[in-house]
């Protein structure tokens, strides 16, 4: 016989049945006919022959009948399948409703796992993988000037370096230089837009095409060409009434009349937030190489790798270091993908979040698995009864499968909802801190993946025990009662709970670290008092301000007028407001100390008006502050901060010494002030100096005005009026309270912390559900035993202790594993978090406490149930 597959056997089984019946029926007919003929007096042989003759072909009739019946059986089978499916779903729904709490918990676990993981992966995907909005995006790199290998420290480079790089490099199609700036458009009212002076190579290199007009021509970099400008579509529409009208329009930009030659799509916005571009006029190649204020973008040549480009730039840097020993000795040009500019600092956090969300998914999956196991075990009896009553094994299996699928579908749908909501929350939370083209959308791949994983787990663990159950002899199960069940399954469930607890503990440790970091960040001593300080910026643009005395006069006059606004306590200006991102560094020499060439000290410095320390409430530790007398013709003076003073004059005698910060020669130290956070909250204290604006008058200043009362913003209309009176072509821009500025600096970290806390909460909830499920199962199994104990005189207290001991046991094992894993995770995480110590015992104490509370809370209900067992009922039930 040929080997027939198993399923065929069922079919042949049915077929033989049909054929037999047909045969039987036909035979009966023939027999009756033969009997009839015999009764009429025929010989049996004749009767038989005649009957057969009369019937015709038995074979044909037989085949016809079998065919009809088989066709019918097939269609009947399909109908029956549908009917049983409907029955299964109905039954499953009823059952799930009966075990409502467990079903809800399982569905929520699935939903949370799916939602959290999909959200985090969608966010990570957007940041790490979404292509840049430039055609050449994946070939674009930035070139940073790194000093002493400190990649975070250096960003900008100088024009002479740029020219040498461009001439000597072999790895790039081209390099472009960018200097971020902002422009005052003088129309009816002056307005301020962000933009950049760019080398004409930039747009070509980005691969941008104009919406109207043209891009820059190379000759527009030359100093004596007519001034031009390119604007974004947004600006063209808002200020010029459309792209077509904008091209060719003449506009007064800070005193210079420029012709708009082209309009580019809004999405270009490079550097971030730019709406206007002017050609970066070629600088004198002999200009100081140490004056570094440019950023660089380059497009890799086809076939050139990032590593090759890095080697190339490194060797050029080495050559330049030899040729220009005084300015370039410790500078290395470092090549980095452009994407890093957008992602860089967020990367570590994102990986942490992605890892955390995978942990949550794992917890959710083990949880669902545990719940499903518990359900299956609890139903062992029911299944045994059904099998004993004749339900087919396949039928019972299908029933369980239907239940699991139903549960998974409900969980999945909820999960999708959560993921959508989560995605929206994150999108709103990060809006503003990421470029506008990085729109967050749900990643379908992540969603499909998490859905598939969690549903598979739900189904697998719903059906696996069922398979096992269906193989058991129903009689054994029924005879053995409940206790015959689940010794091994109990172990598996316990290990699931232990895993959940361990993973949750890791997440709680991570969340604690993240929160601690945020709290520390918010409590960082700033060295100043930001409350009630309004900041705004002005930029002295136009021919008039080519004269330094005009710059001094304008800033002084504005200072005087702002101070006169009602409610203003102190008005002062500085080049860079605190916490506003970084600042300018100056090569500084200390009188009487020689440093080897190229090792000159770089110190962050600000040019300020006299009231600055009072406006920001920076304490004056020694000496005096600036006065109006420290003018252009007065002796050069400088104020240094505490760290500067302590570093170079540890004896405390800094005042009176002289330093040269590269503008106006040697200046005498007249005072020492407290340290402040200049660039970032997380920076350690560093040497800083302040010089009087009147002695080195920069054209771009940030005012920091201390205002009485709650609402420092109210002074802005008065400030605008004052500025208009001084010079109607100047604009006030970037007005924001210092409080708000600091808030923004912390917000991304707070978002990170918040997400971590959310994930940890989800994990704890899941762990609680897991503990609850396994303990209720345990109690359910032990009811007869507990009943017996109570009947024999055990106190309720002892019964509760019995149950608690069990869950505490699980918690301890899971806790030890989790604390160990958490210690490892914390060490990794501490690198990307500010001011936290992975070895801090408090963190572990918090995690242990959270874990203990969860374990006890989750055990309360089952323990109460156990203590409420009525011995008579319990014993009779068995």
């Amino acid at each position, binding site marked *: 016989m040929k080997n027939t597959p198993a399923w065929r056997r069922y079919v042949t089984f049915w077929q033989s049945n049909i054929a037999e019946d047909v045969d039987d*029926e036909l035979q*009966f007919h023939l027999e009756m*006919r033969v009997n009839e003929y015999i009764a009429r007096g025929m010989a049996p042989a004749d009767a038989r022959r005649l009957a057969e003759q009369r019937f*015709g072909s038995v074979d044909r*009739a037989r085949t*016809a009948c079998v065919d*009809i*019946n088989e066709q019918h059986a097939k269609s009947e089978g399909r109908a029956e399948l549908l009917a049983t499916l409907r029955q299964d779903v109905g039954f499953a729904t009823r059952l799930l409703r009966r075990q409502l709490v467990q079903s809800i918990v399982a569905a929520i676990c699935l939903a949370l796992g799916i939602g959290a993981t999909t959200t985090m992966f969608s966010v990570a995907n957007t940041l790490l993988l979404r292509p840049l909005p430039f055609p050449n995006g994946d070939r674009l790199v930035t070139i940073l000037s790194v000093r002493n290998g400190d990649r975070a420290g250096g960003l900008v480079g100088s024009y002479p370096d740029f020219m040498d790089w461009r001439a000597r490099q072999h790895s790039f199609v081209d390099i472009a230089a960018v200097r971020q700036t902002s422009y005052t458009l003088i129309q009816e009212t002056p307005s301020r837009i962000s933009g950049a002076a760019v080398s004409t190579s930039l747009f070509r290199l980005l691969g941008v095409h104009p919406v109207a007009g043209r891009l820059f021509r190379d000759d527009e970099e030359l100093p004596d060409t007519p001034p031009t400008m390119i604007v974004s579509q947004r600006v063209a529409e808002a200020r010029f009434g459309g792209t077509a009208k904008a091209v060719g329009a003449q506009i007064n930009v800070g005193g210079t009349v420029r012709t708009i030659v082209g309009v580019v799509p809004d999405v270009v916005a490079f550097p971030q937030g730019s709406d206007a571009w002017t050609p970066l006029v070629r600088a004198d190649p002999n200009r100081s190489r140490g004056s570094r204020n440019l950023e660089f973008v380059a497009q890799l040549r086809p076939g050139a790798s990032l590593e090759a480009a890095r080697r190339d730039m490194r060797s050029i840097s080495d050559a330049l270091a030899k040729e220009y020993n005084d300015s370039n000795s410790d500078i290395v040009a470092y090549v980095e993908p452009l994407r890093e500019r957008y992602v860089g600092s967020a990367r570590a956090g994102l990986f942490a979040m992605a890892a955390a969300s995978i942990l949550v998914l794992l917890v959710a999956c083990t949880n669902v698995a545990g719940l499903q196991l518990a359900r299956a075990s609890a139903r062992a009896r029911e299944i045994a009864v059904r099998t004993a009553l004749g339900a087919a094994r396949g039928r019972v299996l299908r029933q369980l499968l239907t239940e699991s699928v139903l549960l998974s579908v409900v969980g999945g749908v909820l999960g999708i909802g959560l993921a959508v909501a989560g995605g929206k929350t994150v999108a709103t939370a990060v809006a503003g801190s990421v470029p506008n083209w990085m729109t967050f959308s749900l990643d379908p791949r992540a969603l499909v993946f998490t859905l598939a994983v969690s549903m598979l787990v739900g189904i697998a663990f719903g059906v696996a025990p069922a398979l096992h159950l269906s193989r058991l002899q129903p009689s054994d199960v029924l005879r053995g009662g409940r206790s015959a069940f689940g010794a091994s399954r109990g172990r598996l469930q316990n290990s699931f709970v232990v895993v959940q607890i361990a993973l949750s503990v890791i997440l709680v440790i991570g969340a604690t670290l993240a929160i601690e970091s945020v709290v520390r960040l918010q409590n960082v001593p700033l060295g100043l008092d930001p409350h009630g300080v309004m900041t705004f910026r002005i930029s002295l643009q136009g021919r008039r301000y080519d004269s330094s005395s005009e710059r001094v006069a304008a800033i002084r006059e504005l200072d005087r007028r702002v101070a006169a606004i009602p409610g203003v306590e102190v008005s002062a200006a500085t080049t860079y407001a605190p916490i506003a991102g970084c600042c300018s560094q100056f090569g500084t020499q200390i009188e009487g100390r020689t440093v080897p060439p190229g090792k000159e000290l770089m110190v962050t410095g600000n040019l300020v008006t006299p009231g600055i320390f009072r406006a920001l409430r920076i304490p004056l530790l020694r000496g005096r502050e600036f006065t109006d007398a420290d003018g252009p013709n007065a002796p050069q003076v400088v104020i240094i901060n505490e760290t500067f003073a302590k570093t170079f004059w540890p004896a405390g005698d800094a005042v009176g010494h002289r330093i040269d910060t590269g503008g106006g020669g040697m200046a005498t130290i007249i005072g020492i002030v407290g340290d402040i956070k200049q660039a970032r909250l997380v920076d350690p204290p560093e040497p800083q100096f302040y010089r009087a604006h009147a002695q080195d008058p920069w054209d771009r200043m940030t005012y920091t005005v201390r205002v009485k009362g709650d609402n420092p913003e109210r002074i802005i209309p008065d400030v605008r009026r004052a500025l208009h009176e001084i010079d109607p072509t100047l604009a006030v821009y970037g007005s924001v309270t210092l409080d708000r500025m600091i808030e923004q600096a912390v917000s991304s970290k707070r978002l990170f912390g918040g997400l971590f806390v959310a994930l940890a909460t989800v994990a704890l909830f899941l762990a609680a559900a897991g503990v609850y499920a396994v303990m209720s199962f345990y109690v359910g199994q032990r009811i007869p035993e507990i009943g017996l104990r109570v009947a024999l005189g055990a106190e309720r207290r002892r019964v509760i202790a019995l149950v608690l001991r069990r869950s505490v046991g699980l918690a301890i094992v899971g806790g030890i594993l989790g604390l160990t894993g958490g210690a490892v995770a914390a060490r990794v995480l501490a690198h990307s978090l500010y001011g936290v110590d992975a070895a801090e015992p408090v963190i572990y104490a918090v995690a242990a406490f959270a874990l203990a509370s969860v374990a006890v809370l989750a055990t309360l209900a089952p323990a109460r149930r156990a203590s409420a067992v009525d011995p008579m009922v319990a014993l009779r039930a068995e």
Partner: protein
Amino acid sequence: MSEPSIEVLRGTLDLLILKAVSWGPTHGYGVARWIEGATNDVLQIEEGSLYPALHRLEVRGWIASEWGTSENNRRAKFYTLTPKGRAQLRLEAATWTRFAHAVFAALEAPPQPT
């Protein structure tokens, strides 16, 4: 067999079967015998096609079957008319009668002037 029998027209067999089982549960042989008797042996059905017809009618739901014991104590399949079958019988009988009347009328009509 006194006279040559007439072969039953297709479709008519279904009608006769329905009529045969309308008197009560009958097995296939009984159906054949009833048709022979009721038509005075004029209509002799081809027994080979009787059974496929029975099974077809059963699949259509006009008749139902059940295994039972025959008058000589043998296992036999008995057919009964379902309510659906009864309605069908009424319909087909009416159709057949109209058809037969029409044929009669045609056969007895006077020659038509051309």
